C-alpha cells in the first residue's frame, strides 16, 4: 500500500480564478448588452466600443471563466480517478500562472484593438504562441499523471479530458497560422473561402472541445459523485465518447451555409450536425437517468438542481444546434440574435450551471465542512434560471422578427423594410429585456460568492488530502478485449483519439486546399491597394466584423437589399476573411457599390445618427485625429505577398507613393463635399476600403 496526497491547492486557485474572471467576463457582457440599447455606453472611447468589447466578453467567459473552471474540475477528478497526485507540482503552477498571464494579456490587448479578426481566435500571434506552450504544459501534466497512475483503467471522464487536450491543440495551431507583420499584428495564412473553412472548423470545435468535451468528463465524474450513485450506463458513455469525437469535428461548415463555401462542404457539415443529435442526446439521457430513483434529492440538493438544469440545457442546445444546421432553418436564423440566444443556452445553462454545481460541491469537500446556506444556493439557482429564460427568450423573438422583416416584400415586389434601421427599431425592446436577464444571472453570482466565502470561513482548507492505494503492478494487460488493452495504454489511446479527430479535419480541409489553384478566380478581382490594406486593418482593429457581415447570400431578399450575391472568387485576397456571423448592422460586402460617397462615410463614422437617425452604431471620432503609420506599409505588402497575394516584386518600394496618391484623391473628394481632413488620417484609409468593397465584379459589368 502506497501513501500519497492529492493537490487541492491548485484546484482552489483555478476555481477562484474562474469565479473572479467569471464576474469580470459577465460584467463586460452586460456592458455589451447595454451598448446595443443605449449606444452612449460605448463611452465614445476606442477601448470601450462594442466591436472591441464583444471579443473581450467572449474570450473572458470562454477561456477565463469556463477555462479556469475546466482546469479546476479536471485536476480534482483526475487525481482521484487515477489514485495519484498530479504529475508535477511545478508544471501545475506554470500552467496556472501562465494561463492567467495569457488572460491578462488578452484583457489588455483586445480593448486596444489588437485582434486577428477571427472569432474566438482574436488573440494576436505572441499570445497564440503562449497559449500553445501553456496548453502543452497542461498536456504533459495530464498525460504524466495518467502514466503514474495507480488505477489500471481510465474512467470515461479521463477519455474526454484526453480528447480535449489533443483536439484543442490541433485546432489552435492550425487556425492560428499567420504571417506576423509586427509585434501584435499578423495576417492569416489562409485567405477567403479557405480561411472561412479553417476558422469555422476551429470555431465550431472550440465549442465542441473546449466547452463540451471537458464538461462532459466533468459531468461523468461530478454528477455520480453528487448523486452518490454510478452513471446510468457505462456502455452508453463509451458510445457517447467515440461517436461524439468522431462526428463533432465535421460539423464546422454549418456556420457557413448559403455562403460562398463549396456546396459539398456545406452539405457535409449539415449532415454530420444532424448526426450529432444521437451522441449528444445519448449523453444527456445518460446524465439525467443517473438520477433515476433519486429525483427526491434533486428537490433539496442545490448541487443536483444546478446539474440537472445544466444537462437539460445541454440537451436543448444540442437539439437546437442540429436544427439550426438545416439549410432552411439556417436561412432564417443565421446573422440574427437567435444564434446569440442559442449560444447562451449553452453558455449560461450548460457551462455556467455545471460550473456552479461543481463549485458548490467542491468547496465544502475541500474545506472539510458543509455548505453555509443551501437556501442561498437555491436562491442563486432560481435567479440564475430566471436569468437564462429572460435572457434567451427575447433573443429568439428578436431573431425571428428581424429575420422575417429582412425578408418581407410588399405586394409591389419591393422590400417592405428597405431601411435596415426599421428592423433594428423593432427588436430594441428585446435588447433591453435580454440585458435584464443577463443582469439577473450576473447578480446570482454574488449570492454564490457570499455563500462560498461563509463556507470557506467555517472550514479549514485541506491543502493536501491524504490517500493510499496499492501500486500498479507492471504486468501488461494482454487478455481481454482490445479496448481494455487500449485503455491501459494512455499513449496509444491518445494517438487513436488524435486519429479520430484528424480524419474529419483532413477530409474537409484537404479537398478545399487541393482546389486552391482552381478556385474560380475572377479576373476583375485585384489585390487591395496599400491604402485599402490600411483601411482594412482599421476595420479589423475596430471589430466591425462583430456587427457587419460581408457575405450576401443568394436570396432574393438579400440581392434586393445588398446587390449581387457574393462569389468565392471575390475573397481570394482576404487575409483574414471577414464574412462575419452576425448582422447587428447591414451587410457591407457591396458597400462600395451601395454607398460610394466619401462624404456619407465621413459623416457616418463621425456621428452615425446624422445620416442614419436612430442608429445604434458607436461613433468613431478618433479615426479623424489618428494618422496611419505609413512606415509599415512596405512590410504589410511583403507579408501579404508571402501569404499569397500577388503583388508584383518591388511593389513595396512604390507602395507609399501609391498610397499617398489615393489618399489625396479621397481627401480632395471630401473637400468638395465640404470636409477638410488630413490625407494621413485613419478615416481616409477606412473610407478607401469601404468604397472598394464589392466593386471589383460590379465595375466590370
Amino acid at each position, binding site marked *: 500500500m502506497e501513501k500519497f496526497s492529492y493537490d487541492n491547492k491548485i484546484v482552489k486557485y483555478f476555481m477562484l480564478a474562474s469565479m473572479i474572471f467569471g464576474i469580470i467576463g459577465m460584467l463586460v457582457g452586460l456592458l455589451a448588452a447595454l451598448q446595443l440599447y443605449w449606444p452612449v455606453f460605448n463611452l465614445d472611447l476606442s477601448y470601450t466600443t462594442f466591436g472591441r468589447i464583444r471579443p473581450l466578453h467572449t474570450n473572458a467567459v470562454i477561456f477565463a471563466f469556463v477555462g479556469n473552471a475546466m482546469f479546476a474540475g479536471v485536476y480534482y*477528478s483526475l487525481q*482521484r*480517478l487515477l*489514485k495519484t497526485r498530479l504529475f508535477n507540482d511545478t508544471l501545475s503552477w506554470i500552467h496556472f500562472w501562465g494561463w492567467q498571464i495569457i488572460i491578462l494579456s488578452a484583457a489588455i490587448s483586445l480593448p486596444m484593438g489588437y485582434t486577428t479578426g477571427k472569432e474566438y481566435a482574436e488573440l494576436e500571434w505572441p499570445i497564440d504562441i503562449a497559449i500553445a506552450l501553456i496548453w502543452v504544459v497542461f498536456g504533459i501534466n495530464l498525460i504524466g499523471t495518467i502514466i503514474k497512475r*495507480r*488505477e*489500471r*483503467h481510465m*474512467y*470515461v*471522464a479521463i477519455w474526454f479530458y484526453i480528447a480535449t487536450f489533443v483536439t484543442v491543440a490541433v485546432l489552435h495551431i492550425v487556425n492560428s497560422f499567420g504571417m506576423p507583420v509586427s509585434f501584435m499584428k499578423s495576417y492569416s495564412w489562409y485567405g477567403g473561402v479557405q480561411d472561412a473553412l479553417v476558422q469555422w472548423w476551429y470555431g465550431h470545435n472550440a465549442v465542441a472541445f473546449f466547452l463540451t468535451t471537458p464538461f462532459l468528463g466533468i459531468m*461523468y*465524474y461530478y454528477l*455520480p*459523485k453528487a448523486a*452518490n*450513485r*454510478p*452513471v446510468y450506463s*457505462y*456502455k452508453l458513455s*463509451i*458510445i457517447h465518447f*467515440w*461517436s461524439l469525437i*468522431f462526428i463533432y469535428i465535421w460539423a464546422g461548415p454549418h456556420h457557413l451555409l448559403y455562403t460562398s463555401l*463549396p*456546396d*459539398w462542404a456545406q452539405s457535409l457539415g449539415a449532415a454530420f450536425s444532424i448526426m450529432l443529435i444521437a451522441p449528444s442526446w445519448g449523453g444527456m439521457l445518460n446524465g439525467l437517468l443517473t438520477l433515476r430513483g433519486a429525483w427526491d434529492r434533486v428537490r433539496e440538493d442545490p448541487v443536483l438542481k444546478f446539474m440537472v438544469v445544466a444537462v437539460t440545457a445541454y440537451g436543448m442546445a444540442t437539439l437546437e444546434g442540429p436544427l439550426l444546421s438545416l439549410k432552411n432553418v439556417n436561412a432564417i436564423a443565421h446573422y440574427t440574435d437567435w444564434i446569440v440566444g442559442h449560444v447562451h443556452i449553452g453558455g449560461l445553462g450548460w457551462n455556467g450551471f455545471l460550473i456552479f454545481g461543481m463549485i458548490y460541491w467542491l468547496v465544502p469537500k475541500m474545506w472539510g465542512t458543509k455548505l453555509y446556506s443551501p437556501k442561498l444556493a437555491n436562491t442563486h439557482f432560481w435567479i440564475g434560471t430566471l436569468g437564462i429564460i429572460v435572457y434567451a427568450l427575447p433573443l429568439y423573438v428578436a431573431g425571428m422578427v428581424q429575420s422575417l422583416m429582412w425578408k418581407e416584400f410588399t405586394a409591389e415586389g419591393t422590400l417592405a423594410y428597405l431601411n435596415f434601421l426599421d428592423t433594428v427599431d423593432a427588436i430594441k425592446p428585446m435588447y433591453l429585456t435580454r440585458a435584464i436577464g443577463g443582469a439577473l444571472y450576473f447578480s446570482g453570482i454574488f449570492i454564490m460568492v457570499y455563500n462560498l466565502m461563509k463556507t470557506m470561513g467555517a472550514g479549514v482548507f485541506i491543502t493536501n488530502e491524504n*490517500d493510499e*492505494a*496499492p501500486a*500498479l*503492478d507492471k504486468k501488461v494487460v494482454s487478455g*481481454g*478485449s*482490445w*479496448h*481494455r488493452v487500449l485503455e491501459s495504454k494512455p499513449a496509444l489511446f491518445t494517438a487513436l483519439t488524435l486519429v*479520430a479527430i484528424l*480524419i474529419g479535419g483532413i*477530409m474537409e480541409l484537404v*479537398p478545399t486546399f*487541393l*482546389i486552391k489553384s*482552381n*478556385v*474560380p478566380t475572377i479576373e476583375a478581382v485585384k489585390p487591395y491597394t496599400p491604402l485599402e490594406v490600411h483601411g482594412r486593418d482599421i476595420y479589423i482593429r475596430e471589430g466591425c466584423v462583430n456587427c457587419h457581415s460581408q457575405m450576401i447570400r443568394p436570396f432574393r431578399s438579400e440581392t434586393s437589399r445588398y446587390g449581387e450575391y457574393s462569389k468565392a472568387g471575390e475573397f481570394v485576397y482576404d487575409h483574414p476573411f471577414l464574412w462575419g456571423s452576425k448582422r447587428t448592422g447591414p451587410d457591407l460586402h457591396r458597400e462600395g457599390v451601395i454607398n460610394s460617397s466619401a462624404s456619407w462615410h465621413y459623416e457616418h463614422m463621425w456621428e452615425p445618427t446624422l445620416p442614419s437617425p436612430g442608429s445604434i452604431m458607436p461613433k468613431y471620432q478618433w479615426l479623424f485625429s489618428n494618422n496611419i503609420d505609413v512606415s509599415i506599409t512596405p512590410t504589410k505588402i511583403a507579408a501579404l505577398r508571402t501569404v499569397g497575394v500577388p503583388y508584383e516584386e518591388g511593389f513595396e518600394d512604390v507602395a507609399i507613393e501609391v498610397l499617398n496618391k489615393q489618399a489625396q484623391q479621397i481627401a480632395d473628394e471630401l473637400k468638395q463635399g465640404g470636409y477638410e481632413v488630413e490625407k494621413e488620417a485613419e478615416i481616409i484609409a477606412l473610407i478607401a476600403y469601404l468604397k472598394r468593397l464589392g466593386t471589383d465584379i460590379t465595375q466590370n459589368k
Partner: protein
Amino acid sequence: MFKYYFDQIENVEIWPIISLLIFLTFFIGLIVWLIRIDKKYINKMKNLPIEENKYSD
C-alpha cells in the same frame, strides 16, 4: 459551378467513400466490443468515481 472545379481533383469521389468506410468499420467494431464486453469490467468502471476508498485490481 462548384461541380466544375471539383471535377478537377482526380478521383474526388473516393473521399466520401473512404470517410464512410472508416466510420462504419470503427463503429461496428465498437458495437461488437460493447456487446461482448465483460460485465465485471463495466461494473468496476462504473463505480470508480463513487468508490474512491476501495482499491483497484
